[in-house]
């Protein structure tokens, strides 16, 4: 089934709510998004960051106080939800409990006044697509969580929406099913080539499904980029700590020349691959080092020496807590075979891959 592919532009959209205690608060503040036709963009952030509000404004369930929303160039800011032709998948599925699976999926087509035969064919096709052929006469109460989410997905795509919107669609499923469903959603989105905006607070889920991720905090988009951009080149401490686990090591910038930056930290000098544009010589900085970029070597080798405070064997990997001076560092090593001789209380050398280290100004929160 071919779906017309268009982009979505969100321009300076804001939404205020009045809060009983805090007064006027911004749920979304001057949000800009540009989603290319066929792209899969994820809004990622902690609860209350404005991601759902932004999505609901795109869907037309909320109306922005400022800014505009365009679909394929057409301004839809004032258009009611039922005229936007978007597919919305809700966190709680929102299946109509009084209708069968068939009638749930057929609902959007019936509202459009399509002929019964056309509806039957479309519903059959889309149920086959999500793997629910034969479920037509069941009711949502009889389905498992994963099946209900598939019905919700089928109901959203059968109307051939111009854009597909997901609001935390997997948060009510168990961990295993979440992984399976996110793969299915991604595959379906690719095969339909439909522009998709997806909201989640789960950074792993966001990295697994998205072409691009927009991280939101306190109503604003704080960084946009691919999963790798966000993970290795976070623009702020917030993004560094929200996306994955991280060591933030205080230091002083010595010099930046070309592609490399040298920082005095951990009693030595550490080289980093990228640095925030705002940092200059002599500035107090934070080094962003992911636990897995710390390589454990013999004492004397590597960039600096550290004491092993604890080590936890977890099968596929071992997690270490190291101390260097008064800085504690998390370190993760994958176990390729028999575990080595590193024990609690012993000393190790630590080598850091410069290309995987980023330098942030001290104040970038």
């Amino acid at each position, binding site marked *: 089934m071919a779906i017309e592919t268009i982009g979505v532009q969100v321009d300076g959209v804001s939404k205020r709510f009045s809060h009983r205690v805090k007064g006027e608060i911004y749920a979304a503040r001057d949000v800009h998004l540009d989603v290319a036709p066929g792209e899969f963009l994820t809004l990622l952030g902690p609860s209350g960051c404005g991601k759902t509000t932004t999505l609901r404004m795109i*869907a*037309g*369930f909320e109306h922005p106080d400022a800014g505009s929303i365009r679909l394929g160039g057409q301004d839809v800011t004032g258009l*009611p*939800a*039922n*005229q*936007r*032709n*978007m*597919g*919305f998948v*809700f*966190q*709680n599925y*929102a*299946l*109509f*409990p*009084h*209708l069968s699976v068939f009638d749930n999926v057929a*609902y*959007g087509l019936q*509202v*459009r006044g399509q002929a019964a035969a056309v509806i039957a064919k479309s519903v059959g096709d889309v149920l086959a697509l999500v793997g629910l052929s034969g479920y037509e006469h069941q*009711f*949502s*109460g009889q389905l498992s969580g994963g099946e209900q989410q598939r019905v919700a997905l089928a*109901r*959203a795509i059968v*109307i051939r929406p111009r854009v597909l919107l997901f609001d935390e669609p997997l948060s009510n499923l168990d961990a295993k099913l979440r992984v399976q469903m996110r793969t299915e959603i991604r595959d379906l989105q690719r095969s339909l080539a439909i522009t998709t905006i997806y909201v989640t607070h789960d950074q792993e889920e966001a990295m697994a499904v998205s072409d691009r991720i927009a991280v939101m905090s306190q109503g604003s988009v704080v960084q946009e980029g691919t999963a790798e951009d966000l993970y290795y080149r976070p623009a702020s401490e917030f993004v560094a700590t929200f996306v994955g686990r991280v060591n933030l090591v205080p230091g002083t910038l010595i010099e930046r020349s070309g592609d490399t930056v040298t920082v005095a930290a951990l009693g030595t000098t550490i080289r980093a691959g990228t640095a925030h544009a705002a940092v200059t010589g002599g500035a107090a900085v934070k080094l962003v080092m992911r636990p897995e970029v710390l390589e454990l070597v013999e004492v004397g080798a590597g960039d600096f020496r550290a004491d092993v405070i604890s080590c936890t064997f977890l099968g596929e990997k071992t997690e270490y807590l190291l101390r260097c001076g008064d800085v504690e560092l998390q370190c993760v090593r994958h176990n390729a075979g028999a575990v080595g001789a590193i024990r609690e209380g012993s000393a190790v050398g630590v080598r850091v891959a410069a290309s995987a280290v980023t330098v942030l100004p001290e104040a970038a929160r």
Partner: protein
Amino acid sequence: MALSLGASRWRVFRTVTLPLCIPGLANAFLLLFAASLADFATPLILAGNNFPVLPTQAYLQITGLFDLRGGAALSFMLLVPALGVFLLQRYWVSRRFYVTVTGKGAGQTPFDSISPAVRAALLAACAVVAATILYFYALLLYASLVQALGANHALTLRHYRVIFTEGLRVIRDTLIIAGLAMPLGGLYGILVGYLVARKPFVGRRTMELVSMINYALPGTIVGIAYLIAFNDPPIELTGTALIIIACYVFRYGATGIRATVAMLQQIDKSLEEASQGLGAGSGTTFRRVTLPLILPAFFTGLGVVFIRSMTAISATIFLVSISWTLITVRILENITELSLGPAAAYSVLVVGIVFVVIALIGRGLRWFRAPGAIPVTSMFGG
């Protein structure tokens, strides 16, 4: 749970069960207090002038002495405690935690919280109450079938002949009024309930409060208020069937409002949003999604309005006229004339009609009930 921690049954009851029941108990106390405060027919028939209470005195003031002002003053004195109880109850209920449908398995482990002896005693107490109630109904039936209860116990259908000949007009009036009030009250309940629960507008809370006050206040007050309000132009309704119907619709439609609000609170807003997102306008959404899900509330509203229209007296005794009167009022007249037989026959008829209508509504509810709709237990009480 507490049992497993080694507490005795009595201790569990005192420290766990009882505190959890206190809101319910307090609510029951308040309800009973409000009902006793408002009751009209019971003290009038059983105590007459020996034990004057505010509602009956207000009635006698108006119908006996034609003193509308005196009656209004008396009923205003009743208004103060009644309103107090209503607001206190609202406060209690609003503080209670509503977790009705959690989606988690609701299996309860039956556990012996009471000893067999206590259980037997409680069962016996309930059985005595139930038997007493059944005995009253049996006595009522018997009284309608004998010449004169307490004097001549020869069986006869005389009383029924009376009510189906000279009483036929009263029966017809009552059925017409109840039959009209039922659908109007049901629709009113659903409409106001939907507005209150779903549409944000200025004065929403006030609207809900006002609609509930109409129900919570003693009927005497409401009756006198209707009488005063519609006695003169611009809206002159006194003496018509319309004033009785309006009183029933607005007074007893409140149950439908409450049922609708309660059901809508359990229906996630995302269902309506899903419908809009799929292209449906708000009219289609209401008709195809919301309405089917709150249909049980509609039937509840229908049932309550019909039952109350057949049985109520406190408010409408002020509103009946030569042209339109009600069975309940006629029963009261029969009692005061000491003709117990026809009164009993009318009562049996009312009980019979109410039973048939409840059964029909129950059947309609099952017929229409959507498979996924929220199960509704009887809301006919109150």
